[in-house]
């Protein structure tokens, strides 16, 4: 009996950890879903998250305020996504290449500024982290309640953001407009929808949510920053978007799946199996590739994905 209870508790805590691991992926994935539905492929998501993580950390470290950290996290993400938008919509540079270049830019900028500010130190600078918020009643449910309804504000925001995104994309004219622009921008243009403006708006959403996703790493999961802290999470979020078919709850589900692999990875590392830790660190990346294989042939991309719209092209 006690044995079974321990196993159950173990599973539930693992699930709770999976949820936390899923937060950055879901938030970034939601933003990218908006962007891709409107026809903009932003491979620079990694850079967006990294920038969000860095600026949120710096702001929270300097002001000791999490709220300021969150705001600067959004700002950091926006910085990268706006450059992407400008380069793609205004200069008509290939969106994928802009994304690749921005990942470089973001990686360099964040680690340069971090090193410049802190120098070579032996102690890791820490920033404040968010505290869990206990939801009354629900959190009193034995075992499950404590882990599922005693989470931090980002987790609740993630659920909220999924619902709001769902309503916008599926229940409003805005969602229809975004889909029309991603599928047939010229048709949308001829009925007077502003293709560029809409894509800028989805780029703003993408930057903010991606920046928040990055901020979650520093302001909730870790409490510190280091070079390349995202280590590929932005790319994993891109896979989450594909597997979730750009549907908010699909993205959430896919993020939970990859999040579980990550949570499991940390557990296995601490278990002390005698294997090098790299065996486990690999796990989320391997799972991501496998997940990608499962989505073969299932998702159909918006027809204009990755192609910037030019009106007077003849």
């Amino acid at each position, binding site marked *: 009996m006690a044995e079974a209870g321990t196993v159950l508790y173990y599973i539930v805590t693992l699930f709770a950890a999976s949820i936390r691991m899923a937060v950055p992926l879901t938030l970034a994935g939601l933003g990218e879903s908006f962007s891709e539905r409107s026809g903009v492929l932003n491979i620079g998501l990694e850079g967006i998250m990294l920038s969000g993580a860095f600026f949120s950390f710096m702001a929270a470290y300097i002001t000791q305020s999490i709220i300021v950290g969150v705001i600067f996290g959004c700002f950091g993400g926006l910085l990268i996504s706006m450059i992407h938008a400008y380069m793609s919509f205004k200069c008509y540079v290939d969106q994928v290449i802009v994304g690749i270049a921005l990942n470089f830019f973001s990686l360099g900028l964040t680690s340069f500024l971090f090193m410049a500010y802190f120098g070579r130190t032996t102690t890791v600078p820490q920033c404040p982290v968010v505290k869990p918020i206990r939801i009354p009643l629900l959190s009193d449910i034995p075992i499950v309640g404590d882990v599922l309804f005693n989470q931090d504000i980002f987790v609740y925001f993630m659920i909220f953001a999924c619902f709001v995104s769902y309503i916008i994309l599926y229940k409003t004219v805005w969602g229809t*407009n975004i889909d029309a622009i991603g599928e047939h921008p010229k048709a949308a243009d001829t009925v007077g929808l502003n293709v560029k403006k809409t894509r800028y708006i989805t780029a703003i959403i993408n930057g903010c949510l991606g920046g928040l996703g990055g901020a979650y790493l520093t302001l909730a999961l870790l409490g510190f920053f280091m070079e390349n802290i995202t280590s590929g999470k932005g790319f994993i979020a891109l896979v989450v978007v594909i597997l979730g078919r750009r549907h908010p709850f699909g993205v959430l589900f896919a993020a939970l799946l990859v999040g579980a692999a990550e949570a499991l990875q940390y557990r296995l590392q601490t278990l002390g199996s005698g294997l090098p830790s790299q065996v486990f660190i690999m796990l989320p990346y391997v799972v991501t590739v496998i997940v990608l294989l499962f989505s073969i042939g299932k998702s159909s991309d918006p027809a204009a994905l990755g192609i910037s719209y030019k009106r007077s092209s003849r």
Partner: protein
Amino acid sequence: MPNLQLKDIFKEFPGVIANDNVSLTVEKGEIHALLGENGAGKTTLMNILYGIYTKDVGTIIWKDEEVSFKSPRDAIESGIGMVHQHFMLVPTLSVAQNITLGIKDKGYPFNNRKKVVKDITELSKKYGLQVDPTQLISKLSVGARQRVEILKSLYRNAELLILDEPTAVLTPQETDNFFEILKKLKKEGHSVIIITHRIPEVIKITDKVTILKDGKNVATVKTSETNENELSNYMIGRSLKTFSSREEVIESEDNGLVLEHVGLNKKLKTLTDISFQVKKGEIFGIAGVDGNGQKELAEVIAGIRKPDSGTILIAGKNMNRASFKTRKKAGLAYITDDRHHEGLVLDMNVTENMILKDYDQEPFSKKSIINYNVVREKTEQRIKDYDIKTPGVKTPIRLLSGGNQQKVIIARELAVGPSVVLACQPTRGLDIGATEFVRQILINKRNEGLSILLISADLEEIVSICDRIAVIFEGRIVGIVKNGADLDLNKIGLMMAGHIGETVNS
């Protein structure tokens, strides 16, 4: 008082003057044809009116006010609607979503499906434009999509409708139905501008014609006071060339191209039980409305897709499992319908495009090494033979005109001595000069004894040069008729709409 006046519109694109002081006047309740060849500047003029392009010089007066629309939205809000040649519909959205796209209706920003569906149903009844508002666009036929486009404009209270080549994709019966709709629109007080190069239609339906040539006004005449010959003279400066259909076909056992019971994708019935023979010295035409399996048929014959059932013989050899290259060696030439995406590599130059099908053959290459000296010589020769206008052999093919691009394709395909030519929409988008050039080459090749399969949605083209005509509908051959003076066009029209006809073998 005219409803719409365009005065001295001038528009220059890099290197080409698209509209050179063009003027146009349209009255209320008038159907006005804008007649001209491809490249005469008709669509550009209308795109300027509709706010897609901005004019360099000129005035537009719409309902007594000078206007200058900066975007289609401005035009729509002023009561002007345009149906483009390539429909501007989002295939993944429903009819209702497409019709209301961009409109801020009651309840904005939330969807208001019920009201929208009701409104559309009412509107479609009023004008006899039948559609199911809940259906996805991707599931609709071409005719239905056109009705959606017209509804889209009417839903936005369009008083003036601009229709760009509206009948290009319709069967003769659908066209008649479409003319009925136009008459209704006229009766309700709408003005209509039809952009077209089809003279018979102009005569049949319009009140007035404005003819453009090389971006300039040629004439404006009342339809009742003109005739086909005069319009043709205005449009191209001479009467249209008529091709004589040849009376006799060389009887031969050895047919160039034979299809026996070919089927593709049993579930979707993309192609079902297709059988015909293209004899030597014959142009065999496949007529039909676009999207009835023509493309798939061409790809099955070329070996780009593999059929599920049936047999394909080229020069007597079974080609069912053969790749494109094997078929090519057996004598097949393939002129695709999509120059830019399939026939050419736009980022490569003329020379490189000239060897696209033969780069791995001698004398162009030996043991994988391409001999660019030989390639250049041959290219120069073909440029001369086919009168291809290009600044040089190393010019990016992107910079050539459509007609010259098509000539490159035809030179490439026909220069190596094929026995069977598969020509898919070979004149689509070309001006009349280039079109006649291409048709003449096909006729010459027939006279040399080649087997030619011409797939075309342009019935006029099929009738003017084919010896026999098959009609394809929903992936089936519904009938094969012999071309000649006694050809019943009405019957072909019915077949294009799916009515079963007869089959003749010679």
